[in-house]
Each structure stands twice: as structure tokens, then as C-alpha cells.
């Protein structure tokens, strides 16, 4: 048995059941007497209705209950925001069911519970709802403002007054979203005797959602248990508190039987959070030598029909992360987050950063073209060099202060590792197929954490088995393995003997969950704290019994012995230690994406010849898992650049309502990529030095590919996605 400590890459603990088909995802989970719920959704993007006639549906075979807003406490209480709260936006919160007016196609209007999903779908066709269609607003510039913020730092007017060159441009990012391959699902069961609720299918933030559910029901939290099963991807969207997270438990209480709801793909694409849709009007002031003087951005964030749990997270992150790795004497950012008749929005992997990295890195290339300065050089010339660096912006209430970094060093290493000069030579050669070649580079700063605190408990049995209880959860990213490695390293017992438990609010007293690249950083630091404490206590106690100094003792699964005198030993006791890691500060990993592309102007296809990601994450606990995170993140970024788009017709009907039209990249579309993971700038804010590695693969794909395509075609790209139609238009411009 090996330690498999920090820096090693043991096989993932979570893979054994998954690879053998023994995982339990929510659709695999059954309870005796379980019945099935169907969320009846609005077919209109905006309509008024007065009456839902359910008499025929209630008579249909197998139908048990029909729930409309009239049946909900207070006709449905609004689902609160949990982050980036904005008091003014609270009047736009979503309620579990529409009450008289629907505001997007797919909005829940009723819950039907039947013996099977088939029968529920049959019965739903018998519902009669007197919709009167209303005017539909889709254009973000015409939307009602739900949130508005201005951030200003330095003298922006003076900066622009002394500029030799001002670059002004409008950029658009299309609406796309996380679309995890496992759709959402819940099974809820009410115990009438104990007056308790259990909900399976929790993800991302079980403890937070338990609190919200308790609040909406007017209950004590202790009466509710949320349980996480295997989760097939989250990426920000899955696990937030949605209308169904109230409706399914509520339905289970009404019918007195366990109720299952498995979201199908068609509803998932309309119901789960969308993201990314922004329009930026941005200006960059520079000196003739390429020195940045000021950056001004006014952007509109189309948040859809309601303000959901994430409140102003995406525009808030956009405004605070737009400055990126560069030193700006002056910065002014302003957003309007607006309501339209589209699916409400939330986060998607690298929220706000995917968008602004595209905007900023594209803008810098335009400036470099205008001034005739090398694209690498203009970036290097403007890097931040002093750390910590206060950007003067906020992440929620937390100041955005870059904790550590050496941007020039990473740039040097990346250019060398990826043979940038070789890529430039490739770029200069003619393609044998007549394709146009382009090279693009984009720099980014990511963010990790904080969500303030995290819980861990490490339990040792007298047989040497170790169980780690964590307040973070697994969305498939490998956190069980990672936390076991941290525990193994700091406790000093083998990785194989460590089991990680998570996601059950009955077993774990508190937790903030997994999002924002926080699990390794916050969860890891908490596990480390508990493991260090447990080891100290074990050794101190043994030291007393053995009359030796703790430093002279050796801890193994067989017991604790005096070094060099194995006969002087004591068996392992059973012992449990808790710890909480508290940190108000964020980690700021950073990196570079390099893209070499070939554009077929005949078809509009963009072929990725080579793609490379350099990423400094402070410390890699499990390098293979980190590489997997970067590869997967890149695939999603590439989808967002080339393929994925939630388009709507003029009536607000979604045009991408299945995976036939919502185009996810498959293994055929995603090339292997080169990676360079460095550990030159550990975070000073946590004892592991980790910064989180979940989102850097996605962060700058828009910037890098768009820059490469612009380089290939010799025209400025200002809009995503780079669809074949758009490419052929750009090529003939």
C-alpha cells in the first residue's frame, strides 16, 4: 500500500463503480410505492392565463394529483438568491409555479403526479389553460433592468484624454449553457409519522439547498435531509435551487408517496440555467508604444425571465474579472443585467470570465494590429508585476486582490513548451488544402473559492481505516481521490485505506458544496487541518503511553511504534477529529491559451490544428485529475466558440430544443491538447497553496480561437459563435 500523497496521480477512487456500471444516478434510484411527476411547462414565451382546467386530466388513468399555484403556500414563495444578492432585483425572483402569467417558454405552470411518466404525459395533453399571448421581448437592449452596477477606479477621463490611440468595439457572446449529460432529477419522500422529508438527487450545494427548502416550507432545517447520489456533471447549472427543488418535495407531502422527477432532455434545455449572453461596448486607451492607459466597458447581461439563485453573479464576475492580468491606470465598468422572455440564467464553468476574456483578449489583438505591435509583446508590456494586486473590484463582498503570480514567467515557459516560434513558422507556410492558417494567444486570470468556510472530519478506526467527511461534494471531478490524497499525506496513512463521504446532510453537519473551483482549495484545506490535528493527537496520546517523544514515533495501519523499536508499540485507537477552514480571500490562478487553426473558407469550418493551455494553479494535488479538468474545460469552451447556441425565434420559441440542434462537441470535434501545469505561484491564503483548477481550460477558448480565426482571415472577429455561416461571411467581407 502506498501513501499516494499530494502530487501523485493514483487511479481515481470514484471510478470503480462508475466503470463497472454500478453507479447510482438519480434515475437508477427507486423507492417502494414511488410515483412520477411531470412539470407542465408553458408553450409560450409570454402569456397571461386565468384558469387551468384540470378536470379531464384528473380523471385520466393513473393520475394522482395536479398542483397549480393555487395549491402552494402563499401561492408560491419566491426562490431567494444565494450569491451576488441585489435588493432591487428581489422583485424579479422566480416562484415555483407561474401564477397568471408565464414569462418564458418552459416555465412551470403545474405539477402532475401519476403512476408513471407515460401516464403523466398523456394526462398533460388533457389540461386546458386559457393562454392569451403577450408581447415578447428578446433583445437585451430592450429588456427591463434588474440589476445595474458601475465600478470605477483611477481617472478614466484623464486616461482617455492622454491616449494616442483609442480602440472602440462591440462584442457579442451567444447564449449557451452547461447542459450536463445527466439531466436533473429528484426523488422526495415524506415521513408523515416523523414529519420529515428526504430528498435524493442533491448536487453542488446540498446544505445550502436544505436551508432554502426549509425557508420556503417554513420548517426547521433539521426536519429535512438532502442526499447526493452519483452526479453526471454540474458545471455550475446542476444543483442550484430551481422550482422543481420545491415542487417535488411538496408533491411528495401532498400525495403521501415517494415522488420521482427525472428531467428529460427537451425540458432540461429549456429549464436549466442558461448563461453567457452578453453585449459589450468597450473602449481601450493606449499610448503609441502599446502601454495601456484605460479600459471602459458598458455591457448588457441578458439574464432571462427571472432572477434566479445566482442573482448578479455572472455580470458581477464579468465586471470584476474584465481587467485580467494587466495593469490598468484607470478602469470603468458598467453593467445592466436585463430581463427578457428567455430561460433564466445562472453560471456556467468560468462564468463571466469566458465572456470577458474573449472581449479583452480580442480587443488587445485589434489594438496590436492597429499599432503594429507584436501580440505577445503588447501583453507582456502591460502585465501586473507586484503581488498582491488589488484590482479595486469585488467578488460579491470580497475584494478581488490577486494573491500571487508571475505572469511573464508563465508566458516564457509557455512559448517555449508549446514551440511558439515553430507555430509561427507553420502559420507562415501555405496549407496544402488551401485553408487559411491563423495563430491566436489569450491570457487569463481565473478565480477560485472562496465561499468563506468548509468543514471536514477525519475518523480513524482501530483497524486503521480512515473516513473523511467533507462539506464539499462530487460532480464527477475527482474530489474523493483528491481529498483522500490530502488526508493520506497529512495523516500519514495509506491512500487505499481512506474513504471519502460527502453530500448527505444527515451525516455531514455543514458544508458549502462544490463550485467556483473551491473544493480542492477549501475542502482540501479543511481536510488537511483535520488530518494534521488527528495525527498530532494520535502521536501525543501514544507518546504518553510509550514514554517517548511524539517525533520519535511511527504511525502505520498496524499501530504506533517507537522508531527503530517496533516492539514498543500501541494499537491504533478509534478517534475522530473535526476542523473548519475559514478564508474570506480568493485564489487567482492564471494561464495562457494558444490556438493554431485552419479555416476552410469554402465551408466555413474552423479546424483546430493545435491547442495548448498553460496554467499556474499554485499546487497540483493530483496532476492527472488537473489535466482531465483542463481537457474537459477546453471541450466545453470549444463548444461555446464553434457550436453551441440557444437561439430563439421571434416568438421566443427555442430553436435548439434537442441535442440535434444544440450542438455539443463530441470526441470527433475535440482535438487532443498540449498542457503545461506550473506551480510557481502557490496561494498564500491556504496551507496547501492550491488555487483551484476547474475552470482554466474553459476560460480563454473564446479569446484564443477568435484571435486565431481573425489572424487567419485578416478581419476582426467580434461575435461568437464562429459558425460556418459567420465564418463564410467574415471570409467574404
Amino acid at each position, binding site marked *: 500500500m502506498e501513501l499516494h500523497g499530494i502530487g501523485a496521480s493514483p487511479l481515481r477512487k470514484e471510478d470503480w463503480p462508475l466503470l463497472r456500471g454500478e453507479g447510482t444516478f438519480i434515475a437508477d434510484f427507486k423507492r417502494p410505492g414511488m410515483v412520477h411527476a411531470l412539470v407542465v411547462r408553458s408553450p409560450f414565451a409570454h402569456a397571461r392565463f386565468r384558469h387551468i382546467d384540470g378536470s379531464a386530466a384528473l380523471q385520466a388513468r393513473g393520475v394522482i394529483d395536479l398542483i397549480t399555484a393555487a395549491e402552494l403556500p402563499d401561492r408560491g414563495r419566491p426562490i431567494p438568491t444565494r450569491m451576488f444578492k441585489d435588493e432591487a432585483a428581489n422583485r424579479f425572483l422566480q416562484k415555483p409555479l407561474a401564477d397568471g402569467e408565464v414569462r418564458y417558454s418552459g416555465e412551470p405552470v403545474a405539477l402532475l403526479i401519476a403512476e408513471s411518466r407515460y401516464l403523466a404525459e398523456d394526462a398533460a395533453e388533457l389540461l386546458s389553460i386559457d393562454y392569451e399571448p403577450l408581447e415578447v421581448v428578446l433583445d437585451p437592449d430592450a429588456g427591463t433592468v434588474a440589476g445595474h452596477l458601475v465600478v470605477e477606479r483611477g481617472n478614466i477621463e484623464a486616461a482617455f484624454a492622454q491616449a494616442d490611440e483609442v480602440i472602440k468595439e462591440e462584442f457579442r457572446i451567444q447564449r449557451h449553457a452547461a447542459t450536463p449529460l445527466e439531466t436533473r432529477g429528484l426523488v422526495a419522500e415524506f415521513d408523515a409519522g416523523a414529519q420529515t422529508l428526504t430528498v435524493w438527487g442533491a448536487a453542488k450545494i446540498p446544505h445550502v439547498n436544505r436551508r432554502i427548502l426549509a425557508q420556503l416550507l417554513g420548517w426547521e432545517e433539521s426536519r429535512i435531509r438532502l442526499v447526493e447520489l452519483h452526479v453526471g456533471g454540474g458545471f455550475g447549472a446542476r444543483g442550484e435551487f430551481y422550482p422543481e427543488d420545491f415542487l417535488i418535495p411538496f408533491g411528495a407531502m401532498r400525495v403521501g408517496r415517494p415522488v420521482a422527477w427525472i428531467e428529460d432532455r*427537451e425540458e432540461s434545455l429549456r429549464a436549466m440555467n442558461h448563461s453567457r449572453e452578453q453585449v459589450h461596448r468597450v473602449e481601450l486607451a493606449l499610448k503609441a508604444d502599446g502601454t495601456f492607459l484605460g479600459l471602459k466597458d458598458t455591457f448588457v447581461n441578458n439574464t432571462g425571465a427571472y432572477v434566479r439563485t445566482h442573482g448578479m453573479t455572472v455580470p458581477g464576475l464579468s465586471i470584476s474579472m474584465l481587467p485580467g492580468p494587466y495593469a490598468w491606470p484607470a478602469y470603468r465598468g458598467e453593467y445592466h443585467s436585463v430581463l427578457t422572455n428567455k430561460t433564466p440564467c445562472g453560471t456556467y464553468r468560468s462564468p463571466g470570465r469566458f465572456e470577458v476574456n474573449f472581449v479583452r483578449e480580442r480587443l488587445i489583438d485589434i489594438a496590436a494590429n492597429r499599432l503594429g505591435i507584436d501580440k505577445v509583446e503588447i501583453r507582456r508590456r502591460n502585465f501586473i508585476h507586484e503581488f498582491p494586486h488589488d484590482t479595486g473590484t469585488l467578488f460579491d463582498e470580497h475584494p478581488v486582490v490577486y494573491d500571487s503570480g508571475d505572469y511573464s514567467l508563465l508566458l516564457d515557459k509557455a512559448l517555449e513548451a508549446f514551440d511558439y516560434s515553430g507555430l509561427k513558422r507553420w502559420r507562415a507556410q501555405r496549407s496544402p488544402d488551401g485553408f487559411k492558417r491563423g495563430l491566436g494567444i489569450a491570457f487569463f486570470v481565473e478565480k477560485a473559492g472562496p465561499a468563506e468556510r468548509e468543514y471536514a472530519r477525519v475518523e480513524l478506526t482501530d483497524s486503521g481505516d480512515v473516513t473523511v467527511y467533507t462539506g464539499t461534494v462530487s460532480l464527477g471531478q475527482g474530489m474523493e481521490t483528491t481529498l483522500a490524497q490530502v488526508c493520506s499525506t497529512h495523516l500519514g496513512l495509506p491512500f487505499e485505506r481512506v474513504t471519502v463521504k460527502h453530500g448527505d446532510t444527515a451525516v455531514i453537519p455543514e458544508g458549502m458544496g462544490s463550485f467556483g473551483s473551491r473544493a480542492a482549495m477549501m475542502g482540501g484545506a479543511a481536510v488537511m487541518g483535520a488530518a494534521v490535528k488527528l495525527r498530532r493527537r494520535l502521536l501525543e496520546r501514544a507518546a504518553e503511553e510509550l514514554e517517548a517523544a511524539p517525533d520519535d514515533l511511527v504511525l502505520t495501519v498496524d499501530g504506533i511504534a517507537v522508531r527503530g523499536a517496533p516492539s514498543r508499540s500501541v494499537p491504533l485507537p478509534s478517534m475522530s477529529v473535526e476542523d473548519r477552514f475559514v478564508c474570506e480571500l480568493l485564489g487567482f490562478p492564471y494561464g495562457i491559451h494558444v490556438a493554431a487553426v485552419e479555416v476552410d473558407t*469554402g465551408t466555413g469550418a474552423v479546424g483546430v490544428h493545435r491547442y495548448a493551455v498553460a496554467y499556474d494553479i499554485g499546487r497540483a494535488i493530483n496532476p492527472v485529475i488537473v489535466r482531465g479538468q483542463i481537457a474537459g474545460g477546453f471541450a466545453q469552451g470549444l463548444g461555446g466558440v464553434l457550436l453551441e447556441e440557444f437561439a430563439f425565434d421571434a416568438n421566443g420559441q427555442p430553436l435548439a430544443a434537442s441535442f*440535434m*440542434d444544440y450542438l455539443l462537441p463530441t470526441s470527433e470535434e475535440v482535438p487532443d491538447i498540449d498542457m503545461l501545469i506550473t506551480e510557481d505561484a502557490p496561494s498564500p491564503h491556504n496551507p496547501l497553496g492550491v488555487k483551484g483548477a476547474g475552470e482554466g481550460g474553459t476560460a480563454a477558448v473564446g479569446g484564443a480561437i477568435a484571435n486565431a480565426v481573425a489572424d487567419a482571415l485578416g478581419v476582426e472577429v467580434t461575435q461568437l459563435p464562429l459558425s*460556418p455561416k459567420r465564418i463564410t461571411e467574415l471570409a467574404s467581407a
Partner: protein
Amino acid sequence: MKPAPFDYDDPRSVDEAIGLLARYGDECKVLAGGQSLVPLMNFRLARPGRLVDINGIESLGQVKVENGRLLLGAMVRHAQVERSNDIAARWPLLHDAIVWVGHSQIRNRGTVGGSVAHADPAAELPCALAALDAKFHVLSRRGPRVLRWDQIFVSEFTTSLAPDELLTAIEVPPQDPSTGVAFVEFARRHGDFALGGAAVSITLARNGTCSDVAVALLSAGPRPVRAEEAERRLKGGQVDEAAIKQASAAAVQGLHPTSDLHGSREYRVKLLQVMTERALTKAVHLATRRAA
């Protein structure tokens, strides 16, 4: 995404199947590989009252060659065509087209008869069969019929099959071994329905002139399109770069492909011209090598 209620029959013979079709007519839908019908039913966009499942009819699953003609039973899976060395050698265009159909899982289940009967103008097989001048054998209680491609394909998702008729086999005439063929298409992702594509079959005489040519276009209109004007211009002449460019421009004259989320009409017309040009170039290259 669960289908509306339906009745289900699984006949074991063609005779039993056409008996059911004769009895229930319009109410029925024939279930072959189910790769298009089942998703449509799950979306409740198709709501047949009765499915006649022909998967149990063994005689429909055979690939035969008779008098040099290829006979594909309606239930022959795409994968059978793809893996047949005989087809790859003697009907290479069919092989080249079939590998573009969806993904391997879809080709394992999807059938040649299902693809024809579904009549999706973006489907590869109908386009290739149009280029190959295939014939379609149809049977009902009223008797057999043999249809040409331009008789069976009517418009989007519409064939001339009557409700009581079953497509039983597809017949492909022999190919001149010196023919050069190419099937090219462009989709946003591998395996998606193409935004545009072209199937070309060209035979060159000893003096290098074109003795025979077929150009069929994919996703170019409501049904497969034969670019007759392009064929006319190419026949009898030298097929050089200029001739290919002219023919490709002629091929897309008057086309009205449908605009959708993934490509406007203008984009698709331009793409079809590029596809025709690339398919002709490739096919001529092969034909020149074969003629030499």
C-alpha cells in the same frame, strides 16, 4: 419525451406485414430501425396509432447480387452495407455515402429501407441512390410496383408509397468499374445531418472526355436533386478545372434549400457549389487513374 399510446404488431413475413397494412392503412407506421421514427414519437411529433414492426421478417435483411444488380432488402442495416467488401468494390459510391450516416450506433440499427421511406432530404442514402439511378421495389395486397428514385421521393419526409404499401428492396444497377466516384458533405459535427453535400459518379473515355456522369445533391431541396444542367455540360467534354467550376456553378442554379438555425439559404447554396466542385474534382481524379 414519452410516446403517446399506440398498438403494436410484429409480423414474421412480408405477407403478414402487407396484410396488416391493408387492414389498418393510414393508422399504421412501419417500424424498421427506428432511428428517426422513435425520437419523433418520443417528442410526440409522430403519433401513429399502430406500429408494424418488420424487424422480425428475416427475408428483408438480405444483401443479394443478381445479374450484376445489387438488391438490398429493406431491413438491411447501414452497417451491413458499410462492412461489405463486395459493395465497397463494386458500388463504391454507396459505401462512401453510408459512412457519413450518423454514428456507428445509428448505422448498426438504421436500415436502408427506413432511410428511403423516411425521405429526409438531408439523408445520405437517398442522395446516393439518386446518383446511382436505383429502383425501389414496393409490395401491397394490390400487387408489386417498381419505382425510380424520382418517382418514390416526393418531398420532405414524403414518398409516393401508399399507406398499404411496403418498401421491400432497393435495386442498384451495375457500375462501370472505371467510374470515379465521390461523396462529400459538410456538417457542423461529424455524424450530423449535412448542411450540404454532393454525390458524383463519372466515367471518362480513353481520350479523357466524359462519357457518363451523375451529380446528385444533398440537402439541396425538398428531395434529392440531380444536377441535370451540370451533367449536360460535362458530358462529352474534357473535364478540367474550368469545366468543373462551370458545372458546379450550374449545379446550384435555381436551388432553394431551406434556411434554418445552422445555415441560411445563401450559405447553403454557396456550400453546395463548393461541395459539388470538391466531389467532381475527387471523382475525376479517381476516374483518370482508373482510365489510365
